[in-house]
């Protein structure tokens, strides 16, 4: 009898060896990048609400630090277990397309959803195929201490980088207070250098007539000029915090929030961060400066949600996107991350009629994004090394950028 019972128990466990039983929920995993300002309650509520509304689907929202997201995705892809959906920096899209893991997303989504998205945010539409859905479009701003500016008789934000230097010199008071923040520690994005490069009418690559990228041009007059100016702020005029190579942009942001910086070039979302952290000092914002005599070309960063080709539950994943892109959830997301909305319907809401959002939208005019090339992660790394070597006095800006450009052209030919 005992033997029969044992056999019966063993037989009943066998089905577990063959995967999920019939009628089980469809599993959808979503890597959500941790935006500054995005509270855990938001995505926990989103997860819960979606699962309650769709009892046949088991959604798992997995929060991932931005600086670790790229590596995490690569490991997941190489291990054959990518998530169904993930937020990505749109600059990574070409890399993932090159690997062959991207599912063109448009065919899974409703026309209403697609038509409700701001056309300007559709950076992931390549050769008329929409590969990923825009989730955030991040203009960049100059934030400054309006109380300190007033104290020194400075009227408003600087229009040019030269003016920024003048203002920074006036308000600089080391070691307790610095004129302008500068990050020199390698980060997943090259935003710091991009502000100065684009503000000097430069870019990372030559653009061929057909729109493709040519040789790397970071070492041209615009690029060298930009890095020279950055290095002068740090080492010649000493208007930045010391030890810039120890600071990522998040750490520079912390310095501004703690009241140690007069000016910072950062994402427009910092407005939300400052309010969330209850800073007591007065601050204001303006557009990212340009060099005197140059046109303004601010940096525009877009992030997207990508569906993986290996997803076993594409329709369930698409259902989540339809749910997430409802006005209610998009409003909550956009309010917390501090970016202008990517949905037209949300853009019309009273909350986004505030002056700061109008400035954000206006700032996108003439904006340039990251180059969309598969090797961008390595190019990013190489240019960061050039910047760090310059700040540390190991190379001149020209030497550092010449080496970087040569190396970048080499890897693009590999």
């Amino acid at each position: 009898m005992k033997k029969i019972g044992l056999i019966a128990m063993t037989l009943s466990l066998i089905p577990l060896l063959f995967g999920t039983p019939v009628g089980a929920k469809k599993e959808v995993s979503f890597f959500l990048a941790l935006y500054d300002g995005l509270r855990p309650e938001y995505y926990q509520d989103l997860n819960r609400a979606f699962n309650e509304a769709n009892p046949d689907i088991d959604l798992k929202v997995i929060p991932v630090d931005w600086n670790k997201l790229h590596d995490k995705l690569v490991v997941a892809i190489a291990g054959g277990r990518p998530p169904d959906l993930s937020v990505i920096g749109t600059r990574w899209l070409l890399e993932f397309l090159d690997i062959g893991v991207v599912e063109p997303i448009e065919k899974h989504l409703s026309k209403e959803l697609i038509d409700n998205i701001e056309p300007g945010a559709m950076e992931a539409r390549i050769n008329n195929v929409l590969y990923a859905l825009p989730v955030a479009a991040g203009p960049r701003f100059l934030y400054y201490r309006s109380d300190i500016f007033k104290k020194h008789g400075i009227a408003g934000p600087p229009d040019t980088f030269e003016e920024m230097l003048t203002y920074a010199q006036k308000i600089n008071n080391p070691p307790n207070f610095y004129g302008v923040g500068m990050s020199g520690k390698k980060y997943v994005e090259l935003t710091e250098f991009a502000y100065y490069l684009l503000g000097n009418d430069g870019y990372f690559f030559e653009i061929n007539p057909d729109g493709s990228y040519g040789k790397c041009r970071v070492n041209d007059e615009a690029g060298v000029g930009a890095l020279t100016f950055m290095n002068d702020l740090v080492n010649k005029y000493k208007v930045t915090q010391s030890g810039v190579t120890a600071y990522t942009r998040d750490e520079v942001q912390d310095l501004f929030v703690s009241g140690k910086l007069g000016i910072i070039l950062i994402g427009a979302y910092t407005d939300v961060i400052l309010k969330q952290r209850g800073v007591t000092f007065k601050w204001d914002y303006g557009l990212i400066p340009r060099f005197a005599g140059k046109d303004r070309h601010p940096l525009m960063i877009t992030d997207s949600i990508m569906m993986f080709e290996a997803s076993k539950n594409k329709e369930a994943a698409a259902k989540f996107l339809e749910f997430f892109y409802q006005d209610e959830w998009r409003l909550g997301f956009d309010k917390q991350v501090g970016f202008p909305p990517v949905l037209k319907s949300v853009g019309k809401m009273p909350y986004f009629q505030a002056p700061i959002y109008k400035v954000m939208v206006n700032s996108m005019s003439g904006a340039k994004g990251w180059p969309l090339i598969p090797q961008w992660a390595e190019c990013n790394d190489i240019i960061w090394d050039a910047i760090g070597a310059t700040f540390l006095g190991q190379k001149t800006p020209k030497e550092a950028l010449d080496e970087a450009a040569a190396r970048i052209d080499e890897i693009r030919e590999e």
Partner: protein
Amino acid sequence: MDKNLASRPKVKVAFWITESTLAYLLLLPAIAVLIAFMLYPIVYVFLTSLYKTNRIGNLVKFIETDNFKTLFSRREFWEVTIRSVIWTVLAVSAKTLVGLTIALLLNVDFKGRKLARTLVILPWASSVPISAMLWQWTYNYDFGLLNYTLKITGLWKHPPHWLGYPLSAFFANLYVDIWIGIPFMALVFLAGLQSVPPNLYEAAEADGASLWQKFYHITLPLLKPVLLIATLLSCLWTFNDFNVIYILTKGGPVNSTDILITFIYKYAFSFLKFGPAAAMAVVAFAILLILSLLYAWFYFKSERY
């Protein structure tokens, strides 16, 4: 008696019932796991080092030793390899010296010895990534405990950006690695010291031997096998210490704290270049294999004498 045994009819038993066969059968799952999770990846890495791969590490084309040739022609590879050796030598030397000193002290009976032993273990008991994150904050120039303490005590009015400059960042990383590794060395040496017969020290004392003479002629020789094993293990772990450097500086500033293992990670998972990354892993394997063989030769040579 033998005749009785020989005349007994042979009883057929199930093959898994004989002791040795059962032992092998029970070992099979462990062997399968070892093959799947250790041998297979090692063989695959060797193969990958000889192939051109696509961006997710699939083998595309056999290119013989091209990955190695590319690697050896790059100055940064040699810089990183030499730095890995320096890092290992410095860290293991410090861990051995300090660990041995602590073990000698803890081997003496004093009031509070149990508490002291517990405190020594703490750095090792915490998870390495957590410890590294704590030190990352401790080293923070503006808000970290280290600089705050140095400033308010007046010990150093303008302390440096520990993680901001190549030399200070290298030694800051080194310090954390040593801090985490000392407890293991101390405990292993302590266990070794406790196996030294006390009557040897008594006899030496009766002969008028000094503290140093007792240490040099009794403690060290008897501790040698333990010293060798502990330092070998420490070398292997330190050479491949990814966590501390990745969390503190990610190999920066400007790759000045990159060692081979962090460089391999960067090539594989940031640049998606699995071929060169695998080649570097093979080089690291070769270095550590040579080191282990040297140790083994030295160990068995001293055993013979």
